[in-house]
């Protein structure tokens, strides 16, 4: 059981204290329940996870943990740069009292991280990906009652993500999870309950589906809700056009990412192309209002994807899933 009592958090910035990221959160996370954390970018998901995982402390309020809670996995933090991967792994096993079978644990970590000979090299020679793979593997090798993960799939390439997901499935029953994720399918796959974060406040939902529904209501989530036949149709179209030319391929990959709900940044020319290709494919690339810029307009109908123009650098546009920020810009234009 994890008890969060009236927790406030803000970070220090160069201009004094920043805004309140978490604004008086109180809730109890019951034991053995997998929880999904939902919220727009910047809603404070990572901050809350860091606080629950104990790697950061609230500005006000307290968090009581009566179980063994992991640190947020796969971030690649908490590794000593001058020591090797093996030495770091041993250190962490030791502080968590897993000394009696340390050799098995180290073997397990080495096997899972798949970083090869680098395991015996100092951490400072590692890439970011290698660090997060190692840290993820170490987290799994230590017994916790609750594992915390910021984006299950943040660490490593597709193959590693698959592996991580399998590992999470194996944890079910033995330990519980608290994860932050953007992907609806990931949340539905792993979580029973949900926490919705919105403007520094948190709401608890027994049922993750309710939390997702609520999130969509408040945040106009713009994952394109296509029926499976529509999806196959688009996928086929994308497939058939794939080899025509390079810029088309780029546009298609951007759209694919957009479909997955990831924020994408493309340059201006690419952006124009993306819009054209999307139109050609019969996808409605629409914003929450009319956004006038660079000579083309977006019309509001449904809300699949939003194109946000970066105000500072005109040659960039951002393809975002709509969040409040985008809506504000749209309102201003209107």
């Amino acid at each position, binding site marked *: *059981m994890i008890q969060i009592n009236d927790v406030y958090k803000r970070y220090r910035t160069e201009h004094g204290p920043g805004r309140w990221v978490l604004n008086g959160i109180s809730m109890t996370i019951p*034991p053995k329940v997998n929880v999904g954390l939902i919220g727009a970018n910047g809603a404070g998901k990572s901050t809350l996870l860091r606080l629950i*995982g*104990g*790697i*950061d*402390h609230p500005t006000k309020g307290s968090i009581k943990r*009566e*179980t*063994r*809670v992991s*640190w947020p996995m796969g971030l690649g*933090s*908490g*590794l*000593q*740069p*001058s*020591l090797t991967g093996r*030495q770091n792994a*041993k*250190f*962490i096993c*030791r*502080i*968590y*009292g897993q*000394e009696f079978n340390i050799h098995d644990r180290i073997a397990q970590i080495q096997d899972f991280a798949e970083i090869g000979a680098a395991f015996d090299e100092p951490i400072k020679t590692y890439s970011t990906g290698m660090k997060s793979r190692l840290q993820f593997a170490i987290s799994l090798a230590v017994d916790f*009652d609750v594992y915390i993960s910021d984006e299950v799939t943040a660490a490593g390439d597709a193959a590693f993500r698959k592996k991580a997901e399998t590992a999470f499935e194996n944890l079910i029953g033995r330990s519980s999870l608290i994860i932050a994720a953007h992907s609806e399918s990931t949340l539905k796959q792993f979580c029973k309950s949900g926490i919705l974060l919105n403007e520094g406040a948190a709401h608890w939902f027994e049922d993750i589906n309710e939390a997702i529904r609520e999130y969509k209501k408040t945040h106009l989530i713009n994952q394109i809700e296509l029926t499976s036949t529509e999806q196959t149709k688009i996928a086929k179209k994308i497939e058939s056009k794939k080899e025509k030319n390079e810029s088309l391929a780029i546009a298609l990959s951007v759209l694919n990412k957009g479909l997955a709900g990831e924020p994408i940044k493309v340059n201006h020319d690419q952006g124009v192309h993306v819009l054209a290709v999307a139109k050609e494919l019969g996808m409605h690339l629409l914003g929450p209002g009319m956004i006038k810029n660079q000579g083309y307009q977006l019309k509001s109908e449904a809300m699949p994807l939003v194109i946000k123009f970066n105000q500072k650098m005109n040659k960039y546009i951002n393809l975002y899933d709509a969040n409040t920020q985008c809506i504000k810009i749209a309102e201003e234009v209107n």
Partner: protein
Amino acid sequence: MEKVSNLRSPLTITLSVWKALFIREAVTRLSMGRVAWLWLMLEPLIVIIFHLYWYSALHIGSIYGMDIAIWFMLGFSGYFLFNRIGKQCMNALNANQALFAYQVVKPIDAVITRAALEGFIMTVTIGLLCIVIKTLGLPLYLSNFMLAISAWVGLSLLGLGYGMVFSVINHLVPEVEKLLNFMTFPLYFISGVLFPVLGVPEPYHGWIMINPIVHGIEYLRLAFGNSYITDPNISLNYLYGCALSFNLLGLALHKKYAVKLVTL
């Protein structure tokens, strides 16, 4: 409130953290770079030989009934013990910042394990120095073992307390570290390492006796020589009192700023 049974007790956690930190520190300190361990031991040896050289040039063979080489060796060892533990503890927080990501590792753990490791290294060093001096045929006799241990532990605790206090202060006010560097430099001269305190005239003698390191070093010398004459006012109680005060103050600071030390 189920599943409390598999939580480890605070003592078990602390002990496992200390053990892990100790091994980690030892690995970094002794295995990094070529023959790092050799340099650790050579440093005091070189300093002692250097000072012996110019004192022998002044034809000073013994100080208050103690052979000059042994007098220097004990003085420097005592001072190095305090100074090295203090310095290591002071920097313990910056060097281990990444590890405070784990809830079980507290800043105070890093300070304490560093002191333990440094104390261990210095104990091995003085042991080796004694062997060297013995093989050179100098008159080294340990006449009061318990007294030697008391002085040695007292100086270590003093170093730990001093390091503990400034580990917090340096972290909160980084400018203090620069000040401290040249403030502690004269400490070397007023600790009875380079000249005997008994020869210092009043009122300076009284001032020097405020320095608890003097008490530790003089007791250490006394333990190695029955005939050594020193100030009758030296007191182990004073040394331990100072060490205890520093340690309590350090613990209080660590407690008070527990959150600030890991979140800055």
